[in-house]
């Protein structure tokens, strides 16, 4: 009896300590704890429409209301995905696509960052670079394909070049724009403390442009995935884009849809990784909600 009461008391104390600890945490970071504590069930609302449509279509095909030859039911797509995964084909193709995007993204975003920083921070450089780059930007990137094939051959180099072009422009524009829009008032703080140009860039400009730089990189990455499809349409024997073309030529809509789903998953994962990697750098942001 006494024992149980004692344990009840200690239990109480523990829960009290816990709650005070929680209280302190809430004081320190009110928004994040609130978010963690209450799971927003409305997030699941987003799943309702696609799941309902998938189930309806599955039922329609099962009960013979539709043939499902050109629009395969979800079960057949999943079976196809599973099959591709089993044979290891899915991994080979996905890896190939990912590799192309990655190389193109690195080349495109690095040159975008360098040229964007130059044209954002120096008026002379802007007047020198920007008109040419803007003119090049007006060319639909796919129009480069024939030239790239002539110059770089039909293998990887031309594909990576196309992806790099696609990544370059949003990154260039985003970085240059971000630097141009840095608050003059914060730059003045740097002047008052007599920062050199390099110090000013490192201590004020760089952190100030980071949030927008992340957004620029994300849209660059998105375009990278867009252009990898185009690049793989140019003729490839591997890659998710090849699966698409192959599915069309062989009349296998389930393979096309499986490749599309793989693209979606891959793109979303890459984007999320970028967001997670950038999060510690832009934690300080004072925005109403997290950006898209």
């Amino acid at each position, binding site marked *: 009896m006494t024992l149980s009461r004692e344990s009840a008391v200690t239990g109480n104390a523990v829960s009290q300590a816990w709650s005070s600890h929680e209280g302190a945490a809430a004081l320190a970071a009110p928004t994040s704890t609130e978010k963690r504590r209450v799971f927003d069930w409305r997030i699941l609302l987003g799943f309702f429409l696609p799941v309902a449509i998938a189930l309806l279509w599955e039922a329609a095909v099962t009960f013979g209301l539709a043939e499902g030859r050109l629009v395969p039911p979800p079960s057949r797509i999943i079976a196809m995905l599973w099959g591709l995964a089993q044979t290891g084909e899915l991994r080979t193709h996905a890896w190939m696509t990912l590799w192309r995007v990655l190389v193109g993204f690195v080349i495109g975003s690095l040159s975008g960052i360098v040229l964007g920083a130059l044209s954002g921070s120096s008026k002379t450089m802007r007047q020198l670079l920007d008109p040419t780059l803007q003119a090049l930007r007006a060319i639909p990137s796919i129009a480069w394909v024939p030239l790239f094939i002539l110059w770089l051959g039909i293998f990887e180099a031309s594909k990576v070049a196309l992806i790099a072009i696609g990544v370059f422009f949003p990154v260039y524009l985003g970085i240059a724009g971000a630097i141009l829009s840095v608050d003059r*008032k914060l730059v*003045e703080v740097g002047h008052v*403390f007599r920062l050199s140009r390099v110090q000013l860039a490192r201590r004020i400009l760089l952190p100030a442009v980071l949030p927008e730089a992340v957004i620029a990189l994300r849209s660059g990455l998105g375009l990278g995935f867009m252009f990898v499809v185009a690049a793989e349409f140019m003729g490839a024997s591997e890659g998710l884009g090849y699966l698409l073309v192959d599915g069309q030529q062989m009349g296998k809509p389930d393979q096309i849809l499986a490749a599309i789903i793989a693209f979606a998953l891959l793109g979303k994962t890459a984007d999320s990784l970028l967001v997670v990697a950038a999060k510690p750098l832009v934690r*300080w942001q004072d925005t109403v909600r997290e950006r898209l």
Partner: protein
Amino acid sequence: MLTFEHLSKTYADGTRALSDINLTVHEGEIVSLIGGSGCGKTTLLRLIAGLDRESAGRIRLDDEVLSGPHPAVGIVFQEPRLLPWLSVFDNIAFGLDGLSATEKKLRVTHALEKIGLVEHADRWPRDLSGGQQQRVSIARAFVTNPKVLLLDEPFSALDAFTRASLHEHLLGLWEETRPTVVLVTHDVQEAVTLADRAVVMQPKPGRIFDELPLTLSRPRDRTGLPFETSVRRVLTALDHSLKAPQAQPQRERDRQAAALWW
């Protein structure tokens, strides 16, 4: 000692923001620049801070002519202007780059104690209220131990209670090193609370209209009669300074009328 000699500033668009300013601010003195909007108060401060260049004349700090930002001159802007990506601690330490980590910590912690924000050292500026942010901004200017501290209407965006408590924080910090302070304000009460001398300015072009010594003993009792009298004196001077330029167009018109007559 801070000296202005025939200081003038004309902007590129031809606006004469300041015209022939001559003024001496003694060491450890708190001078308040007061006047209607557009009389060049903020321009004068930006010239001292080295953020703008004078068109004519010069500013001297002791025997040195100021050109560009000077290590012995600190400024607190109208807005806190904290760097949002640095914690409160790092914001205050922003100007202490050359110092050792221990010295830095010592100075910043002391400043945090003075402004009563020790427990907020690790927070982001966004988590602070407007008054707290401005306190951090004042601390950032003080930790470098400037000889001259410039304050550009630093309390204008705050409510009366916060402002009164910030005046105390400011005087508390000032007591320690007694820097020369140039305070721009449009609040007469504030000028009388803080300053040893009120310099009343006049717009179009910005120039000095009058100087009034404020010799009340510190700490100043804001409700006492001497305080009231001083406020009234400054207000009267301010009133005259604002009326004076209106007389000018009147004279101008008379002259034009006379020209027509002849």
